[in-house]
């Protein structure tokens, strides 16, 4: 018998099956990410040569260039990578859990919930210190709200998407009302963040988003195993011993947590969570894998999209000063339309 093209690995009691093509594609995406990251360090208003950059990174450099790299470009790059990866995983988790590519955190209202929560705390406390808890609470509240409305003897993904969209629109209106009460200068800053921007992140933000990835990431990968049977439908998944409702709740919580952290450091960055998984999946399905959720691939694609969008954003002539989210939307929106067309043709909607 011809064996499936998968590499089996076993080590003591541990074992798994990896599709070599998926592996190659993930490595390839990571390579692309590395190159885009290199470009992101290289390009900027302050001209630096590659030799200077490597000196700064690995030894001690001059003062100004040192600051440019260590306090501007590097944290910004790392926040982009971290937030993009977090969005990618958050999107993949919930899309695959609901078996619906439209059900990503930015579509079902988690992102706007987190953003509204963050904005609300900024307005209440007057500082950005509580942004993250605010985003967390906002994300969880909106998730709970959407769930409560969409839940009817189980979670239908169509209901979830529609309820989430409605909530997103409502929250947008709420944000507009809050913004009207701010002074124009602050409002302009916040507006940018609401579209998704991280113009001058601090190292604290880097620590935060990577901390979230390190803590929640393994749980997400753990749930990736459950996602494999969940892909076969609720009945078969239950038959195979999965506790479908509990698994759903765990995955939702992980997705909301990752979304909230990413929103907290980088704003909602539209379409990253939405587009990362379908791209990763299409890459691996095209190579005949179709085995489980490509969470790592989605993380890599999400990071790539974000860093690329941010690079485009930074490379524009000075003065344009647009938020990064504009460019993630520019890349993501056409993807959304393409995905919708596919779904409509398949008769899912």
């Amino acid at each position, binding site marked *: *018998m*011809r064996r*499936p093209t998968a590499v*089996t*690995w*076993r080590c003591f*009691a*541990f*074992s*798994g*099956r990896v599709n070599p093509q998926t592996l190659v594609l993930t490595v390839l995406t990571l390579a692309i990410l590395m190159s885009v990251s290199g470009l992101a360090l290289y390009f900027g208003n302050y001209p630096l040569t590659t030799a200077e950059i490597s000196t700064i990174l690995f030894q001690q450099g001059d003062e100004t260039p040192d600051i440019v790299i260590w306090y501007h470009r590097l944290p910004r790059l790392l926040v982009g990578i971290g937030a993009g990866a977090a969005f990618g995983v958050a999107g993949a988790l919930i899309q695959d859990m609901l*078996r619906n590519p439209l059900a990503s955190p930015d579509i079902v209202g988690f992102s706007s919930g987190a953003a509204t929560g963050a904005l609300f705390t900024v307005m209440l406390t007057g500082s950005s210190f509580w942004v993250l808890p605010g985003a967390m609470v906002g994300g969880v509240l909106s998730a709970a709200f959407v769930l409560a409305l969409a839940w009817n003897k189980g979670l239908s993904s169509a209901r979830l998407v529609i309820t989430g969209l409605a909530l997103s629109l409502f929250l947008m209106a709420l944000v507009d009302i809050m913004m009207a009460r701010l002074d124009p200068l602050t409002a302009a800053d916040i507006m940018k963040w609401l579209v998704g921007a991280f113009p001058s992140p601090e190292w604290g933000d880097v620590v935060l988003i990577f901390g979230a990835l390190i803590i929640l990431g393994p749980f997400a*990968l*753990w749930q*990736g*195993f459950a996602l*494999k*049977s969940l*892909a*076969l*439908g609720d*009945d*078969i998944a*239950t*038959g*195979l*011993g*999965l*506790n479908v409702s509990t698994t759903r709740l765990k995955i939702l919580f992980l997705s909301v947590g990752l979304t909230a952290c990413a929103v907290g450091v980088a704003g909602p960055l539209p379409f990253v969570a939405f587009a990362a998984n379908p791209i990763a999946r299409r890459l691996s*399905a095209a190579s*005949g894998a*179709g*085995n489980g959720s490509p969470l790592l691939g989605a993380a890599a694609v999400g990071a790539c999209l974000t860093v690329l969008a941010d690079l485009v954003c930074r490379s524009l002539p000075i003065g344009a000063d647009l938020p990064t989210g504009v460019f993630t939307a520019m890349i993501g929106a056409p993807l959304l339309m393409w995905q919708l067309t596919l779904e409509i043709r398949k008769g899912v909607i």
Partner: protein
Amino acid sequence: MKTATFPLSAGGLTLTRPVGTVLDDIGLAVPRGKISVVIGPNACGKSTLLRCLARLLRPDEGEVLLEGDPIDRQKSKQVARQLAILPQNSTVPEYLRVFDLVARGRTPWQSPLSQWSRGDALAVERALALAGVEAYSLRPLSELSGGQRQRAFIAMILAQDAPILLLDEPTTFLDLPHQIELLDLVRKLNRESAKTVVMVLHDINLAARFADHVFALKDGKIHREGAPGDVITEATMRQIFGLDCLVIPDPLHGCPHVIPR
């Protein structure tokens, strides 16, 4: 592990839906190591009963006992190691290959850290061979015929390696020779591996031929149960299906043979 008299039993199962009562105070005990077949007209609640037995549906009242203990109080993964179900209709991702589907059957024996042990690989090979799907094990499900798909699903639950099999119309989409082949396989599993089987079959004559025990269901109630020779009679056929028929002994197998008038 203690052994209960019946591997799977239910008492007082009641389920009401807006359309009416689907299951009406059903009590049943599945005989160990036998092939039980549930028969009854369309919409009488066969699938619902099977789904309740497999904890896919929670009944409004009553409970299901697996090896003597309430099924919903046992760990789902432990239940899955003892009981495998093939639901009536299932939609799975089209791009999935038969091999990967069958491999999924190993889930209750795996964990996120051990996703492909030697035992898993062996069980999948065996299941592929038993269900006769080796020839197209690398093709995606979307490229298969209805019958081929059905056999792929059979292979999946065989890979699950559970002593109790619940099959909801496993012969759907199969032509007559393949129906017989599949039921022969079920019988072989039952006789050689002592599997307890509960299945829903539409074809009464196949039920009569392959069943050790028959449950005749109508309007959510079990009207008669027992050996095929006792249940599949002209009177029961009239009562359950409203079918006017002649029942003669099958000249080849000796089981009852129903000839509608």
